[in-house]
C-alpha cells in the first residue's frame, strides 16, 4: 500500500522546486503579466530541455514516458511558482488531446514538436455562453470538398495569440447535443482567423478567436467526425486535475508564506502567530491544503489507471480545490494585514489566480451537481 508520492516523484518535485525558485522568480511573473507574449522564451526552452514538455508522452514521440501523476506533481510546482506561459495549453489541452485522439501521423507531427518545445498550441473550446456542456458549442465546421470551413467565435482561449496551432471544437452537424461535435487542428496563420487578447485580472492571456470562413484540410480532423465530444470529456478530466494540481501548489505557497509571516510579524509585543485566531485560521487552511493534496494525487492516479471513477474523482478534486485555494489566499491576505493588500506583496498574484481557477472548468456548485448526477442521487 502506498498512498503518497514515490521516491522518484519526490525527486521530480524537489528538482522542479529548485529550478523554478531560481529561474522563475516573481519578477519574471510580474513582467510577463504586462508582456505582450506573456511568457519567457528562455524559460520555455529550459523547461523543454529538462524534459517537462514531453514528461507525460510516450518515448516514441520523444517523450519521457512518465505518468500523468508525474505531470501533476510538476504542475503543482508550476502552480506554486506561477509559471507564466502556454505550458498547460500546449502540453495538456493540445498535447494530451492529440495523444488520446490523434492518428499516428498527427501524433508524429505534433507530439515531438511539443516535447521539444518547438511549437505552442492551445484548444479553442468555450464560447460566449461560457458553458462546458455540448450545448455551449455553436461554432460550425462545414464540409467543402476535402476541406472543412469553420465559422464562429471562441472566447477565453488561452494563449491563442502565440499559438502555432489550435484545436478547435466545432459542430459538424446541426443540434445542441453531444453528437455532431468534431475537433480540428487549425494552423494559427490560416486566413480568416483573427485573435484578440483580452485583459485579465491575473495577466494570463485569454483570447477571443474569430473564425471567418477558415478552411482546414480534412486531414486535420482530430479523432472521429461527429465523435469529438467524448474526446473533450476525457480531456476535461485531465485538464481539471491539472488545474487542481496548479491550485494546490499555489494554496500551499499561500499557507506556508502566511505561516512564515505569522512567526515573524510582531504586534502587541509578540509574534501574531501566537494568537489563537491566527493559529486556528491557519490550521483550517492546513486542513484544506492537506486534503487538496491527497485528493489531487488520487484523482491523478485514477486518470493514469483509466479508473471508471476518474470523472467523479476529478469533480471531487475541483470542488475541494476551488474552495481551498480561495480560502488559503483570502486568509493569506488577512493574516498579512495591510502588507497583504499591497501590490508589492506577492499574495495577490495567488489570490487572483485562485479566483480565476475557481471558475475555470466549472466552479464548486457546478461540480457538486455533477457529482450528484454521477452518484445517481
Amino acid at each position: 500500500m502506498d498512498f503518497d508520492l514515490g521516491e522518484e516523484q519526490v525527486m521530480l518535485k524537489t528538482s522542479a522546486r529548485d529550478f523554478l525558485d531560481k529561474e522563475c522568480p516573481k519578477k519574471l511573473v510580474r513582467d510577463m503579466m504586462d508582456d505582450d507574449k506573456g511568457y519567457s522564451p528562455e524559460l520555455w526552452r529550459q523547461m523543454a530541455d529538462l524534459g517537462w514538455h514531453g514528461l507525460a508522452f510516450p518515448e516514441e514521440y520523444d517523450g519521457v514516458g512518465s505518468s500523468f501523476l508525474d505531470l501533476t506533481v510538476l504542475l503543482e510546482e508550476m502552480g506554486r511558482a506561477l509559471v507564466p506561459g502556454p505550458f498547460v495549453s500546449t502540453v495538456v489541452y493540445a498535447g494530451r488531446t492529440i495523444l488520446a485522439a490523434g492518428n499516428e501521423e498527427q501524433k508524429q507531427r505534433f507530439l515531438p514538436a511539443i516535447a521539444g518545445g518547438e511549437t505552442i498550441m492551445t484548444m479553442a473550446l468555450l464560447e460566449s455562453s461560457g458553458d462546458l456542456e455540448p450545448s455551449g458549442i455553436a461554432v460550425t465546421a462545414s464540409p467543402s470538398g476535402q476541406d472543412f470551413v469553420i465559422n464562429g467565435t471562441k472566447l477565453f482561449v488561452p494563449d491563442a495569440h502565440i499559438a502555432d496551432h489550435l484545436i478547435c471544437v466545432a459542430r459538424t452537424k446541426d443540434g445542441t447535443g453531444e453528437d455532431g461535435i468534431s475537433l480540428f487542428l487549425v494552423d494559427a496563420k490560416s486566413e480568416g482567423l483573427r485573435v484578440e487578447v483580452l485583459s485579465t485580472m491575473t495577466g494570463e492571456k485569454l483570447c477571443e478567436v474569430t473564425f471567418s470562413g477558415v478552411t482546414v484540410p480534412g486531414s486535420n480532423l482530430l479523432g472521429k467526425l461527429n465523435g469529438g465530444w467524448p474526446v473533450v470529456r476525457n480531456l476535461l478530466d485531465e485538464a481539471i486535475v491539472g488545474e487542481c494540481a496548479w491550485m494546490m501548489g499555489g494554496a500551499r505557497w499561500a499557507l506556508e508564506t502566511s505561516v512564515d509571516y505569522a512567526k515573524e510579524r510582531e504586534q502587541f509585543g509578540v509574534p501574531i502567530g501566537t494568537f489563537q485566531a491566527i493559529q486556528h485560521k491557519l490550521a483550517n487552511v492546513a486542513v484544506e491544503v492537506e486534503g487538496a493534496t491527497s485528493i489531487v494525487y488520487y484523482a491523478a492516479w485514477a486518470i493514469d489507471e483509466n479508473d471508471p471513477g476518474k470523472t467523479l474523482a476529478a469533480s471531487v478534486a475541483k470542488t475541494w480545490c476551488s474552495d481551498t485555494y480561495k480560502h488559503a489566499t483570502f486568509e493569506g491576505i488577512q493574516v498579512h494585514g495591510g502588507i497583504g493588500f499591497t501590490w508589492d506583496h506577492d499574495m495577490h498574484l495567488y489570490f487572483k489566480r485562485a479566483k480565476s481557477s475557481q471558475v475555470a472548468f466549472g466552479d464548486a456548485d457546478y461540480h457538486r451537481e455533477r457529482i450528484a448526477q454521477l452518484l445517481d442521487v
Partner: protein
Amino acid sequence: MDFSYTPEEETFRDELKQWLTMHMKELPEWYGRRDIAGPDVDSQEYHDFSVWWHRKLYDAGFVGITWPKEYGGRGGTIMEQVIFYEEIARHRAPGLSNAHGIGWCGPAILAHGSEEQKKRYLPKILSAEEIWCTFYSEPEAGSDMANVQTRAVDGGDHWVVNGQKVWSSGAHVADWGVLLVRTDPEVRKHRGISYLFLDMKTPGITVSPLRNITGTAEFNEAFFDNVRIPRDQVIGEVNMGWYVAAGALEFERSSAGTAIARENSVKGIIRLAKEMGHNGDPMVRQKLAQLYVETMVLKYMALRGLTHELREGRPGPQGAVSSVFSMEFNQRLQDLAMEIQGPYSRLVRGSKHAVDHGRWQHDFLRSRGNTIETGTSEIKRNIIAQRVLGLPRQ
C-alpha cells in the same frame, strides 16, 4: 419602536427627491452608464467630479445634516440623515466627498476642538473646500494601533514631528491632515499620544502613493522629517489623543449609512445575475436571497444601534457588531458577484467583453481591504468579546 416616518420627514424626503431628480441630469455622461467607462477612481478627474457633486449637495443643504447650523450644518435629525442615505441609494446618486474630513476629523473637532477650531475648520470640511486626511497607522502600529512611534517633540511654539505613517487614504489630494503622534514616551501605551493636525503644504512631509491589489493608489505612505506644527494645532488635550481618535461613532462612519447603501449593492448583484442569465439557477437564487437577508439584518441592527446610542449617549453593542458584519458582508457580496460572472469574472477594465467595464472586478479586489482597514475583523471580534460580552482579557 417605530420604523415609519413623520410628515416632516416625508417632506424632507420629497424635497431631496425633487432635488436629486433635477440635478442628477447634470451628472457627466459616463455616470451610471454601463456602456461607457468613467475615469479611474484614483484619478484627478474622478476626485474633481466627486468634489463638484459634493458641493452641489452642500449648497442644497444636504451635507452635515445633523451638524449644528453655526458650523455650516443643517441642524437636522438622525432620521433625516437616514432618509438622505436611503434616497441617495435609491436614486443611485453619487455620495459625499471628503470622507475622512466628514467621518473622522470633523467629528473629532466637533467633540474635542476649541470654539475657534470649530468655527475655522468645520464649515470648510462640510463644503469640501478643504479636504482632510488622516495619518493613523504605522508600519509597526497596525492592529496594535496604540503602538505609535511617530514622535512630536516640544519645540516651544511648535511641535517637531518625525516618523512614518502608512495607509493614509487621500493624502495626495488633502489640504489638511490629522495625525496621531507620541508626545510622551514615558507613560504607558494609550497615554502620551496626541491628536495634531497640519496644513499639508507644511515643509518636511513626503507623501508617496501605496499601490494596492486593485492596481490603483488610493492610499499613501507619508514620511515626516522635522515637520514643524504650530503648538495650537492639537485637538483635545495633549497626551489624550488616543481618546479623541477613538471618539463617538458618527453616523457618517456608522454602519447605518453603509447598510442602507448596501441594499443597493444587493439590487445591483440581482440585476447582474439576471443579465448573465443565472437568476434561474437555484444556488444563485439562494445566495442572492441570503445576501438580501444579511443586508436587512445589517440595516435594522445598525439602526437599532443608533437608537441605543441616542438614548444612552454611548454606542450600544450593535455598533461593534454591525461593523464587523458589514465589512464581511461586502466581501461575500463582491465574491459572489465574481462567481456569477463565471469565466467573464476574469476580464478587467479595458478588456473587450468585460462586464460593466470591470467595475465588479475592482470592487471585489478593493473589498479584501474591508476586513483590515478600520481595524481587522480579529481586533473587532476581540472588542465584541471583551467590551460587549465582558469576557476577560488574557
